């Protein structure tokens, strides 16, 4: 699993980084989505993977050792990160829309003119 998740992380990061560097803002937005995914994958990998693990939901009846459960810490972190990413993305999406509305420019190569500062 280590190799696989590494591969997945690689693929997602590659796509994310590449899209972030494109000229069209919408591609950049997709890039941020991919980067969020990639980072989630990176974080989930940090908990390690063992074949016999169970989800970190305790089974009171079965006296299982703690090592039988998956690491809850990265999961909690990712949950927080996903939510934050969600909030940021929602805002970003609307910002892009507004930016396009105002500047009529999806590429963002020019600085807005200073006389806009009225």
């Amino acid at each position, binding site marked *: *699993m*280590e*190799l*696989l*998740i590494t*591969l*997945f992380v690689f*693929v*997602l*990061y*590659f*796509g994310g*980084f*590449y899209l*972030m*560097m*494109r*000229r*069209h*803002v*919408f591609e*950049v937005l*997709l890039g941020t*989505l*991919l980067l969020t*995914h990639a980072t989630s*994958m*990176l974080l*989930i*990998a*940090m908990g*390690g*993977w063992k074949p016999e693990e169970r*989800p*970190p*939901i*305790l089974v009171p009846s079965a006296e299982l050792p*703690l090592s039988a459960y*998956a*690491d*809850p810490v990265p*999961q*909690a972190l990712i949950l*927080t990160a*996903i*939510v934050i990413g*969600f*909030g*940021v993305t*929602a*805002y970003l*999406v*609307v*910002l892009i*829309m507004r930016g*396009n*509305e105002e500047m009529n420019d*999806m590429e*963002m*190569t020019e600085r807005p003119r200073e006389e806009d500062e009225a």
Partner: protein
Amino acid sequence: MLPFLLLLPFFGAALLMLLPRERLSPLIPAQATVMVTLGCLALLGVATFLPPSLELQEITGERFHHFHADWMPSIGLTFSLWLDGPALFFCWMVLGIGLLIFVYAGFYMDPADSPWRFFGTMMLFMGSMLGVVMSRNALLMFVFWELTSLTSFILIGHWHHKESARKGAMRALVVTGLGGLCLMAGIAGYFWILSTASAPGYVFDPSTALNWDSLWANRELLLNHPASVACLMLVLLGAFTKSAQFPFHFWLPGAMEAPTPVSAFLHAATMVKAGIYLLGRLYPIYWSWELWLILVGSAGVITMLVGGFMAMTSRDLKQLLAHSTVSQLGLLTAYYGFGFDRAGGDKPLPMDLLLVLSHAMFKGALFMIVGVIDHGAHTREWTRLGGLRKYMPVTTVLTIVACASMAGFPLTFGFVAKELFLKTALSLHASSPLLAYGLPAVAIIASLFTVAYSLRMAVSPFFGKPRDPSIHEHDIYSIEERGDAEDDAHDGSDGAASHAHAAGVHEGGPGLLIPPGILVLACLVAGFWSPFLGDLLSPLVNAPFYGTESGFTVAFFHHADKLLWTAVFLFGVGVLVFLAGKRIMESYERAGSPAIFRHAYEAIFDRAIPSLAAWTARTSQTPSLRRSIAVFFAAAFGIVVAAMGYSGFGLPGAIAIPAGLWMATLPIALTLPCLWVAATHRVLLVRVLAMAPIGFFVAMFFVFFRAPDLALTQILVEVVILIVLLMVLFRLPQRFEPRQLRFDPTAGAIALVGALVMAALTYSAMGSPWRHAPTLEGQPSVRDYYLGNAKYPAMTSEEAAAIGYPGASNMRSGGGTNVVNVTLVDFRGIDTFGEIIVLGISAIGVLCLLTVNRRRRSDNWRGGALDDVGHVSDIVNPETHRQLEMPYRAWPSPSLLLSEIGRLAPGFVLIFAAVLFFAGHNAPGGGFIAGLMVSVGLAMVLIAVSWTRSRHLERFDFVRLIGVGLLVALLTVVVPELFGLPFLTSGHWHFHLPLLGGGEFATAAIFDLGVFLLVVGATMLVVQKLGKE
């Protein structure tokens, strides 16, 4: 006493700044300034004549008034003042001349010409100058040193409407500021040398290390350190720039754009002497170095020569004086330069108090006189003036006497000083004959110029016929001549002068003549009584610094043999030079004045640096978003790769993949084409759709990693983001333009490196043995702690006591079996608290974006997604699909089926959300997931039935819901405080109800409720506002 003396002018300045200037007479500033100066003089008098009752200075062996307060002893900055000899002398000089000039300025300046600012700044300057000379600590001196530069800047630019004034001020500031920085670096260098030096018996004390006396006492350390030459150079740069020494002399003439009192006070009498003063302080340390001679001596004589020549060739009397000041400052500098290996023995020269004093007197007077001439004749160009003696008799007399002093004519004070200088120059001995004879020779040539321009000053304006008769008429050509016709209200050379245009050429009033008159008189008196003056000043030269036998032995014709002949020679040839002066000037002007150093300055500061700056801004700063991001990535990855390379970051060996896991390669393999489509397709919507499976695959990986909560959240977030994206999408252009689709190899390469870096980090971190190792001494790892304490209390009372909350042990446990949820609401509840705030802010932000100042520009608005996407030929493949030739028209209403059955479905969603919410603590779910679920359900309702059938959702104030959610969460965070517990402490109880069975309740559930409400509010606010667009 000393602090009062020092701070009095500052208080005065502050007072002038704070007084209500509208209501008070504009004469008050001048009067106040004079009063303050008098007050300072009084204090200084007391300090001078009251014997210092304080302790004996160990090093200097003399008794001074001194004052010490710690400021920042660790970096060598202490508030140490003293009134040793030179300080005392300079204080008297500053205050004395200051008093005269302030009186003069009171009459000179137009009361309408910002007198508050002017006198306030003048006072500030006076205080700073006092600070410079009174500081015992070199760094403290630097503090005031910079203040003088600054006040000078403001004063030069007093008439800021003139471009030349602004330029001159800027130039003065930059040059002196640069020098100031060098000085600071030099002082820092001293501190460095002293702090790292070691010598037998030497103890480094940062608080006193930079005192002048301690610098002198430790001069051996300073001289023998390898960096001492660099330090010397730096400090000298400071002094040279301040005193306008070659090659930094050019700023001083430019500074003459200032009002005349300023020129007289700052740029003739006092501020430019600060550099000389500094040389005087350093001289006892360095005098035995030949390097000192080379640097200081040659700078001095060259400045003398250049200044003298420039003065000769000036038309403007004020410029003439400015250049003469440069020249005289060169003389003062050269005086110190000549200290090396004097014939008289291994004794350093006495401090040049006589020279300084004499220069201050005659130059201050002359500047004021030029002001009077300007005032009376409306021009300062001697090529226009002439025969003024008829109109300005007093001025004529004063000028002649002052110029005599400047030229060093016998019987004047200037002669005494000049004699002292020539004596020193002619007795110079150096290792190289070039120095030993060259420097005095140059100095003597420069002195010729001195005679010549003194004559020019004294003769040309006053005798002969007016060279330009028009100046007697009532015109204002002088204004035009100086090229600032733009503003005649404030123009003229001086403010007051402009009022006098109508009066023709006239003598100045008594207020303008008495102050220079006093100075001129003093020149004469001091000349006659110079032996007495020498006796008076001698004790002020600190004996230990300058040798026990130091001091001035002043007499006329002290060394009658050589000096007399030299003087005669000087005057004889000087007159000849004067006679040839006009021709020299004209040919010089024809040749075009080279002004190399000013041009060099301009080339550097007005052209090179701005263009370098513009270049930097152009290259480093791009408006393009894409390039910003690319550079950002490239830099970041480059640094990380370098870090890996440096640290020998390695990867653990490959780990075999268990058989059943090979299927996990499938989502990875399928992600690649998804990425391909997401990166290359022409239609935005298709790219969005291509992202959706990636989200599912990520959720799959969460499943592989046993993270049910994450899978749930991921899926829900994916859906909500899709809905939001779709709501926005049709306000964007629907398709990419072909040039936007080109592959970008650079981006690809950077992304490849970045992805490799991240993957390598992931892989190596997964192999780390430290993650689940027990932390500290026998404490469980974080993971084990969370798992172990989520349901059952594991904390003993001792442990509870150990962390400061005895008695808390019984309460402590998460009280739930879903460890992730317990972590979210309990172990790391504060993270969740922050996260919901982020969500709330984001929703509010969307609200703001959509409502505040919304101006939609119609031409920018690209709507009409329907047709745009529908008829795109590359979507509807023309080979396989042709337009349906059926009269099938658009439906005006939404789908019947969707609204009939689609509205059943949300009920399931909502009820399932309730399940997830209540189950959350013990099974996958929780407030956040339930909240998203409810939002999805509500969004589904809206999609199915449109706003018309859900008015209450349309009108609902979700901001308030966000507020309620935040409030609930905040209360759960804060309430434990009331019980004296740390915030967010939760408790949980089992309860049993009849008939219904038992249950469990944790206060964390209330927190979860807050989360739930906020999530619903935030998500729905976004959906609502976007949907109503």
